[in-house]
């Protein structure tokens, strides 16, 4: 199997919230079973082998953003740079797996341009975070989440979010895979060989 390409905006030592540590707990054992390339935001563009994975670090090109939505967009250009590098330098990828809305866009671009299956792990949603879409910024984030999720072949999420993902985001319930489940089942079914 060609490497599974994971894309995230945080991974140790860069820790923003709980995603970073949870991801390490998931990916390290996974990398024992399938080849894993990980693209992550860092301080400089470089490649390293850590925890059994090949890590493609990308530096942050833009330092000033007026809000998180603008930040997410420019972050994803950096992540696309790393993801493209990972694909070209590793001879391809079997599947793209993005973590959290903030790094999903890069997966959408890579998936559509390289014809790769797309998996998006959802840890929370804008609706859950803000409870109501009361500002244009919140609506913009919600629309971006929805845009990305509709392009995903599989959405990995806590089943407590399943109803909202289906009702509010238009995700087919059959495409939702429970968070904490065996990701190898997803990869074995969807990965390009």
């Amino acid at each position: 199997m060609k490497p599974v390409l994971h894309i995230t905006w945080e991974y140790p030592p860069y820790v923003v919230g709980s995603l970073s540590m949870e991801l390490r707990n998931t990916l390290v054992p996974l990398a024992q079973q399938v080849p894993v390339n990980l693209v992550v935001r860092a301080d400089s563009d470089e490649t390293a082998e850590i925890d059994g994975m090949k890590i493609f670090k990308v530096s942050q090109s833009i330092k000033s953003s007026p809000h998180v939505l603008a930040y997410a967009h420019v972050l994803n250009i950096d992540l696309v740079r790393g993801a493209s590098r990972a694909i070209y330098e590793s001879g391809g990828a079997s599947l793209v797996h993005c973590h959290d809305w903030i790094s999903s866009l890069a997966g959408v671009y890579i998936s559509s341009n390289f014809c790769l299956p797309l998996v998006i792990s959802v840890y929370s949603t804008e609706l859950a975070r803000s409870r109501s879409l009361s500002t244009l910024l919140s609506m913009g984030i919600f629309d971006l989440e929805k845009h990305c999720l509709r392009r995903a072949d599989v959405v990995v999420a806590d089943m407590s979010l399943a109803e909202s993902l289906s009702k509010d985001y238009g995700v087919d319930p059959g495409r939702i895979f429970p968070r904490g489940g065996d990701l190898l089942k997803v990869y074995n079914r969807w990965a390009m060989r």
Partner: protein
Amino acid sequence: MISWEYPPYIVGGLGRHVFHISKSLVQKDIDVTILTFTDGSSPSQEEVNGVHVVRINPYSLRYPDFISWSHGLNMLMVEAASAIDDFDLIHVHDWLTAYAGIALKHIKRKPLVATIHSTELGRRGSLRNDYERHIHELEWWLTYEAWNVICCSNYMLREVSGNMSCPREKMSVITNGYEGGSMGPPAPLVRKNYAQNGEKLVLYVGRLVYEKGPHILLEAASKLKHLDLKYLIVGDGSMRPYLVDLSKRLGISERVYFLGHVTDSELATFYNWSSAAVFPSLYEPFGIVALEAMGAGIPVVVSATGGLDEIVQDGYNGLKFMPGSSDSLTYQLNRVITDKALSDWLVGNARQSVEKYSWDSAASETEAVYHKVLDQYEKSSWKPAV
């Protein structure tokens, strides 16, 4: 080629530039596809003068502001690019489509060329908030990622090189072109609705924004009340209410017509009627409208800044005044209006001057940049093979 402006969506000179340069490149057997914006009122795909045009409508999503709108447009452009046939090179115009250009450069591993038409620092004078800094950094990023950066004047080359630390070895100056008769036949308007016999008309064409300096013209107009002059202000922008109020306060509101956006044929009529065209910009990367006025046969009075300073030789093919000085403009406008021999001399020389600005030669120079970049690319190991 990626540009947020392309006819019929025109905001400033960028859209006209992309229209003409793409058309001229096709005439040199270069296959050009343009990714651009539509609000839904134009076809999503069509062929214009041999150019393949793919228009993206970003209104399927909501945006809190213009920055997010531009990012959404770029996001959809990147996705749409997967359906476009293979291409050799990506050419981006300005920061508004830098995002798509940079992303596609890395996804496709194809070289990127950027044309910088103006900069945020030049437009604003300083960077005062995160919106302006974000745009400035996007501009820097575009010049950093581009294999070659094209500027429309030596002034812009110095600005981009200085403000963005862009190495001059990878920069080129290619001026805009001028296409005579491109505005079509004049519209059947009635001159006496604007000026009586014996009254002369002065024309301003440009966006009504601070950096274009329309207020400088109004201040000069208030100092030329002894002349029978009327002023035609073509263009629109955020400064319009202020300018309308300013003309009242200066006691010249009866002399000034704010015409908003006009058609090309209406503009051709205004050129025919006018005794002078004034371009009082405080910041002007090139000044394509000055070329149009010179080609139309009316004397131009321009501020000595940016591209205007390079196009016009004072006293030969136009008159120049100190940027921001209404006294200096008053002096020069008075000269050109009252001295028929001077006016004729400037017009005759200006007609000859504009001949060197052709879209065909701009396309030839652009093609040369493409060849140079592709040659460097071929010699590099940075290729898309998986």
